[in-house]
């Protein structure tokens, strides 16, 4: 075989208190889809950031077509044809979609930005990822799944030879993900190599020509196309077997704890939402990106107060106008956008985990320091948050571990009704099992759980009952017996053809 298109030899990188990479090597052939997988904190994102010029390695070499190169900046990387779609969204909220796609590379006309051309070109890339929004829409107004698609369109627009995708599907639902897979296939046929990072092993199996597994910043092994299997991957990732099994047991629902009747969200005021949720029940909410699932949770949680309708918690009518009021009656929400709504990046793990519980644990207005330490220790233990200590700044944790911090914050409150918006987003297989087990345990203790997920398997595996939404409406409810891939998809598209 000729020299690989891109090769990494013995790359190392340390951060204060953490050795993220300890001599990692990978090789990427032309027109190949290489999946890089590993547990949360294994060093995947760090490796990709180095390739994309965001961070500099401590030691090791990067070779392109057999010749050693130095990638000093993002600009350097782009010049060599390497583009990265970050795990965390990196879009300017206050700019429109087209401007974001061409940010820093705006075509000029007479010294001024050629807005017309930008919009026209942007349309092309948006079509490629199947996103049907006006290029002049402000990015900040789009739901997070659509923002992810904009990010992908942006990466396509640089015409890279190596396209790195760090968990591109973590906030996409099945339909959008399918479109992305098609884009990846097309790219490969046109000679582009793709490095694909994901915790959704099903996708990896479908897409990858080869899999490289990282564990604790080291190479744990490679799998060729024909060797790729769920169990094989998991074994390399965690060093032991984990069953693919969802720990779900049917629950006998208790009393109704949440009754929603005719609630209208500001996002879709035309549709009234009604459903009930019982103690000890796990109800999944399925739908495509933009179906209004997040908006529904936000309204129930008082973030965007309802425009009408009633809501009863344990038989008492409430109309939360702020999260504070919602928390007061025993509700909790693990929000979708962890960077903006979930964690306070610059604060420590301990301070984040205890933040929502401060009020409950206070002593006449004073913080209870001992309780804060206990809580964070408990959550780091039970959620297996990978952090050197609980005084670590959350920003320096890997994406999946940040997600666990958010979960920890809300579990610490011991809520009566728990809303989860994509709770396993960006979380590795082992930790997913932990979270599923935790959901089960909470349900057994009588907590009512309503969870939004774009992962079909998760909906099918974990729900006692599922609600399906489409364009702001609840289009149907499926009991566990009637839960199936097709039934969910049919309701999620409300009879429309699935564009694939």
């Amino acid at each position, binding site marked *: 075989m000729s020299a690989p298109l891109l090769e990494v030899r013995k790359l190392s990188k340390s951060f204060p208190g953490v050795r993220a990479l300890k001599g990692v090597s990978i090789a990427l052939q032309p027109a190949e889809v290489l999946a890089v997988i590993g547990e949360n904190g294994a060093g995947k994102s760090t490796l990709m950031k180095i390739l994309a010029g965001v961070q500099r390695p401590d030691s090791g070499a990067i070779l392109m077509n057999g010749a050693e190169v130095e990638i000093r900046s993002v600009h350097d990387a782009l010049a060599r044809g390497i583009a990265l779609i970050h795990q965390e969204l990196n879009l300017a909220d206050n700019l429109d979609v087209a401007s974001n796609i061409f940010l820093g590379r705006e075509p000029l006309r007479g010294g001024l930005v050629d807005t017309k051309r930008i919009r026209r070109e942007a349309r092309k890339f948006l079509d490629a990822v199947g996103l049907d929004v006006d290029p002049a829409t402000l990015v900040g107004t789009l739901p997070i799944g659509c923002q992810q698609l904009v990010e992908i369109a942006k990466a396509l627009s640089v015409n890279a030879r190596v396209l790195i995708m760090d968990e591109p599907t973590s906030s996409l639902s099945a339909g959008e993900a399918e479109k992305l897979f098609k884009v990846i296939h097309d790219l490969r046929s046109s000679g582009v190599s793709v490095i694909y990072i994901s915790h959704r092993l099903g996708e990896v199996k479908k897409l990858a020509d080869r899999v490289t597994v990282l564990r604790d910043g080291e190479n744990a092994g490679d799998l060729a196309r024909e060797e790729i299997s769920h169990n094989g991957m998991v074994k390399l990732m965690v060093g032991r077997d984990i069953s693919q099994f969802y720990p779900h047991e049917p629950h006998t629902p208790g009393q109704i704890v949440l009754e929603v009747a005719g609630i209208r969200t500001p996002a879709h005021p035309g549709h009234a939402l009604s459903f009930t949720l019982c103690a000890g029940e796990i109800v999944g909410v399925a739908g495509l990106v933009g179906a209004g699932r997040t908006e529904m949770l936000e309204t129930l949680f008082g973030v965007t107060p309802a425009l009408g309708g009633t809501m009863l918690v344990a038989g008492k009518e409430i109309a939360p106008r702020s999260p504070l009021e919602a928390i007061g009656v025993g509700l909790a929400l693990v929000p979708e956008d962890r960077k903006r709504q979930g*964690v*306070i990046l*610059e*604060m420590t793990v301990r301070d984040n985990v205890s933040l*929502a519980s401060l009020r409950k644990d206070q002593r006449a207005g004073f913080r209870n320091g001992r309780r804060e330490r206990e809580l964070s220790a408990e959550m780091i233990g039970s959620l297996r948050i990978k952090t050197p200590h609980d005084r670590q700044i959350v920003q320096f944790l890997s994406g999946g571990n940040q997600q666990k911090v958010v979960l920890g914050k809300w579990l610490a409150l011991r809520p009566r009704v728990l809303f989860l918006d994509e709770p396993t987003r960006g979380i590795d297989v082992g930790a997913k099992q932990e979270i599923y087990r935790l959901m089960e345990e909470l349900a057994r203790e009588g907590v009512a759980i309503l969870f939004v997920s774009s992962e079909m398997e998760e909906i099918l595996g974990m729900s006692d009952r599922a609600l399906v939404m489409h364009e702001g409406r609840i289009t149907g409810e499926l009991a566990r017996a009637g839960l199936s891939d097709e039934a969910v998809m049919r309701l999620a598209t409300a009879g429309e053809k699935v564009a694939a």
Partner: protein
Amino acid sequence: MKKILGITALLALVCIITAILSEGFLSGYNIENLARRTALLGIISIGVAFVIITGGIDLSVGSVVCLVGCGLPWLLTKQNWSMPAALAAVALVSVGIGIFHGVIITKLRIAPFVVTLCGLMMYRGIARGFTQDQTVGFGGEFTGLRTLATGQISIPFVDGFTLPAPCVFLLVAALLAAIFLNRTIWGRYMLALGRNEEAARYSGINTDRMVIVAYVICSALSGLGGMLYVLDSNTAQPVDFGNFYELYAIAAAVLGGCSLRGGEGTIVGILVGAALIMVLRNMIMLTTNYTNIEFAIIGAVLLIGVIADELVKRYAMRRRAARALLAETKPS
């Protein structure tokens, strides 16, 4: 603690240099004066620091100082109000201004810079209006009240130096502020919302209320400062009383480690920052004839201070990474 090490060292350095250059610096009289001035600046700096910690800014501090500083003697001597009534009035006005700012900023979502810039113009204008631009003062009266600012507290076993009364106000204010910021849930709420207001709100924090509280603390301490300033100086000229004090206060807070991005700051740091500014002024006054370049020097020191702070931070990061590497590689 580590964060304020650099600025404390700088303060010590400036003190030593001044002491060498000028004999007058270490005289009991000068130190007393310096302590009094530092205490007054410290009080308003703590106020503005709360606003900065929540991610806001208050430019109206100097004008509130002027409004209270002119209003109090005006009420007492020109309107013949009783002392309790006058004191209550200035307290109410100060707190009211804070509520006013906070409510406009949180409920109408208008930028703090704009709201308090308008405040800066309005309150001084009002003071100039009711005094008709005339100097107001206590004359020889109200000596009892004035001891709040001019009083001296002798320290046992120390000769030649007595503690100026405003220092007591400062110590009490600093102590309460530090307890509030570090030990209460509200303090934590302010630090959290200064970093990420949306996440704070999702966590059940009444962010609007906390922001309003911060502006009230700021205006209340500005009012207290204004009162002590005028009690100290005896007279106030509405045209320039408290002029630029908001800038001194913001500079002290920033020197002391408050980030204008919010969510960061310690009370001790702010006190050191305030002391540094006053010592610099004192140095310029004692050692040169050019007091008019004062702003240039303070500006330059502030800039050098924040640059040095940033460089030290980066260096420390790198050192820690290198140490981690060493610690990991050694045993294996």
